């Protein structure tokens, strides 16, 4: 196995565009994820793509790799129009992606992973030692410090990422997408990866490089495109731009979309946290007052969600104190936290928030069963009336309350999830990414619901990796990076550029 470059022998075409997107569009029920994207990827360039979470980067990757089917526009591969609607077709063209989440088999060896699906056999038997030797040669050739015989799961996440990169490089790719490849890499591993990327580029492979890290983009990239709210904002040559300009492109927003914060009086302290540490976060001190929205902003993995989980009793804290309404709180489990008046609206509706197979009514009452139960039996007529009330109050669009909640749209699911906690009642609400996968109209309703809670004297923590959201909502905004709070801003006391720079760490 040698490094195959560019799939087939390079055919000179009139244009050096390898892949060209024309007016590519993607809509999901309720959201418009990509809006008429025009983008070209040239042969042998490193093309960086930046944008905030939710800007459409993941959707773009999934369209390029055939995981999603676009809802509009044309895709040209070497000047010819292609369908590009299945992962198989993407592979056949030579498009590969190295994802944030591993797409390899952790229980197999490095060699087995490199040859996965293309095992060398004779008479039906695998030629393991031959594959092992070939894999080792290829790895040495790439300059990676890896043993082909080691189990993938015995390697660090960073080294596993290198194996994934090697696999893409060895499979005769002509376009390789790296999605946040250095998130888990050490400096040494990053250098090895960068050497590989330069080498791929030199041999004519096109690299699409997605990262939050400005220094990497300026170190590796030839051109950079900025996505924002599903639109392509700009494509520039790296040598003609600077990080500040890119950040401005990333956060500038259309005026009509601005959210008007209601003026609500801030009251007495509700929650104070001192020096809290635990799995994934350390030394967090903050307070929440009645009527106040405290925003926690940070990139994925910066510790904000981990902190919220510990606050809710989901994981144990190793140090620090929590004071709730003047009394110390030691939540050993979720039930303790709920009794203390805390409600968590988690990030993943599908896995943590709702029971998708159960109906709307059951999901609404799930946290509130003790109040609905007499001698162990659920008062089902009361449950039905209450469900009807919440469906009406929150304007949940559903034919009846007996429909499995998994059949509703994302926005309506989110309303059911919020309704579950409003129904139960609490005085501290933690919203983790409250508007992910939610359409604009529902978003506004959710913000109004939050304002209603504040007026009733509740305190709210909003966690988001989408800056405009917390920027417009939070009275106090804490920026998380690497497990701790790096800066704290009062409402709109800093510019979005500054806050984003805090979170990225440039």
């Amino acid at each position, binding site marked *: 196995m040698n490094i195959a470059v560019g799939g087939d022998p390079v055919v000179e075409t009139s244009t050096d565009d390898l892949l060209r997107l024309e007016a590519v569009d993607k809509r999901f*029920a*309720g959201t418009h994820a990509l809006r008429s994207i025009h983008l070209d990827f040239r042969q042998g360039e490193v093309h960086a793509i930046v944008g905030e979470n939710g800007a459409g980067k993941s959707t773009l990757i999934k369209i390029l790799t055939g995981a999603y089917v676009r809802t509009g526009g044309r895709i040209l591969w070497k000047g010819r129009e292609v369908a590009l609607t299945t992962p198989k077709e993407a592979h056949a063209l030579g498009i590969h992606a190295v994802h944030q989440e591993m797409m390899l088999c952790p229980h197999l060896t490095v060699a087995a992973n490199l040859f996965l699906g293309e095992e060398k056999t004779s008479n039906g038997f695998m030629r393991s030692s031959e594959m092992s030797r070939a894999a080792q040669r290829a790895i040495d050739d790439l300059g990676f410090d890896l043993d082909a015989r080691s189990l993938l799961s015995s390697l660090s996440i960073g080294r596993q990422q290198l194996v994934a990169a090697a696999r893409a490089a060895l499979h005769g790719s002509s376009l390789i997408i790296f999605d946040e490849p250095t998130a888990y890499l050490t400096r040494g591993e990053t250098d090895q990866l960068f050497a590989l990327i330069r080498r791929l580029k030199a041999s004519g492979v096109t690299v699409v490089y997605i990262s939050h890290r400005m220094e990497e983009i300026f170190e590796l990239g030839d051109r950079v495109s900025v996505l924002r709210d599903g639109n392509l904002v700009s494509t520039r040559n790296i040598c003609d731009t600077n990080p500040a300009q890119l950040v401005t492109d990333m956060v500038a927003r259309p005026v009509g979309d601005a959210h008007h914060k209601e003026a609500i009086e801030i009251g007495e302290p509700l929650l104070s946290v001192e020096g809290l540490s635990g799995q994934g976060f350390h030394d967090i001190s903050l307070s929440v007052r009645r009527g106040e929205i405290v925003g926690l902003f940070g990139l994925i993995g910066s510790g904000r969600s981990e902190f919220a989980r510990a606050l*809710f009793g*989901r994981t144990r804290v190793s140090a620090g104190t929590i004071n709730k309404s003047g009394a110390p709180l030691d939540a050993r489990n*979720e*039930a303790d936290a*709920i*009794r203390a008046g805390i409600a*968590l609206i*988690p990030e993943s509706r599908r*896995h*943590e*928030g*709702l*029971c*998708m*197979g*159960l*109906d709307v009514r*059951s999901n609404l*009452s*799930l*946290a509130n*069963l*003790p109040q*609905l*139960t007499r001698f*162990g*039996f*659920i008062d*089902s007529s009361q449950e039905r009336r209450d469900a009807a009330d919440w469906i009406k109050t929150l304007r949940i*669009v*559903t*034919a*009846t309350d*007996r*429909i*499995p909640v*998994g*059949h509703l*749209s994302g*926005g*309506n699911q989110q309303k059911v999830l919020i309704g*579950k906690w409003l129904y139960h009642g609490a005085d501290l609400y933690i919203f983790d990414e409250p508007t992910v996968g939610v*359409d604009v109209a529902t978003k506004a309703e959710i913000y109004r619901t939050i304002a209603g809670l504040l007026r009733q004297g509740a305190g709210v923590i909003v966690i988001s990796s989408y800056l405009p959201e917390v920027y417009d909502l939070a009275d106090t905004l804490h920026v998380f990076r690497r497990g701790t709070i790096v800066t704290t801003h009062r409402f709109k006391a800093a510019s979005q550029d500054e806050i984003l720079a805090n979170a990225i760490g440039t």
Partner: protein
Amino acid sequence: MSAISLESRRSLFNTAMLLNLTLFLLLGAMWLGLALSTDTFWTANNITNLFRQTALLSVIAIGQTVVIITGGIDLSVGAMVGFSSVIVSLMLKAGYPIPVAVGATLALGAIVGLYHGFAIRRLGIPPFIITLSSLSVLTGAGLLLTGGSTISGLPPEFTSFSRGSFAGVPNLFWMVIVVAVPIYLLLNHTAVGRHIFAVGSSPEAARLSGINVDRTVYLVYAISSTLAALTGVLTASRISIGLATTGMGWELQSIAASVIGGASLFGAIGGVAGSLLGAMALTTINNGANLLNVNPFWQQIITGLLIVVIVYFDQLRRTRR
């Protein structure tokens, strides 16, 4: 968001009802066919016999369904039937009064179930593995206690129970009612039942709603094992002996009854009515094959194929969503 389509108007609950109705009609067709093609099927004797056989399978199938709704499985119920028939027989032979012997056997069942819950939640052993282990342990323990032989000479007051009837209905079938009604109420009308469905649908969402997932899992395995122990006691009464291997293969029968009755091995779907219909369908196939002089080995093949057909239709319904 646009108007809700007709497709989603048909909720899971209605489809479950539809499945039960289909099963009911299928059962009716089988009964009609057998009544017309044999002159032995539609006799008081055979029908009573059919109900007695169904009764035993129904009781363990109901327990199995409760476990399956949480997304688990209990492979130990067959072995538990044999083991508990041995325990109750040994105690009766040793002179313990019937209520004491029966009570102790049921308590032993509950303890085994709690142990399964402990192993699953605290030790992190998957349900399949821990109950497979108990299948082996309980069968071995039963054989060890009896030296592999049967225990006979049980008191007549004990053995007459399963042959008797009350208000014209066989006692064994009364036992089904005694089990089915409370479990139906538990699953559909209590908070505990709602917790069982929630844990099967999404343990994490249940947890974050303040539900005690550990307690729910302990409970369902305790229910399943206790009902298996009850079935063991009833079996000992019915065949007048204690025998360690008497429930061999019943775990598969109970899973089959549960699944044919509409329970999903992925959790959160299933019910008491379906389990009863499933048990009845399996027993009817069994009974009918005997009456029609079909080679009994065919019964197992037919049961297996029926499971494939029913679960395939269930899968179709799911993926079409």
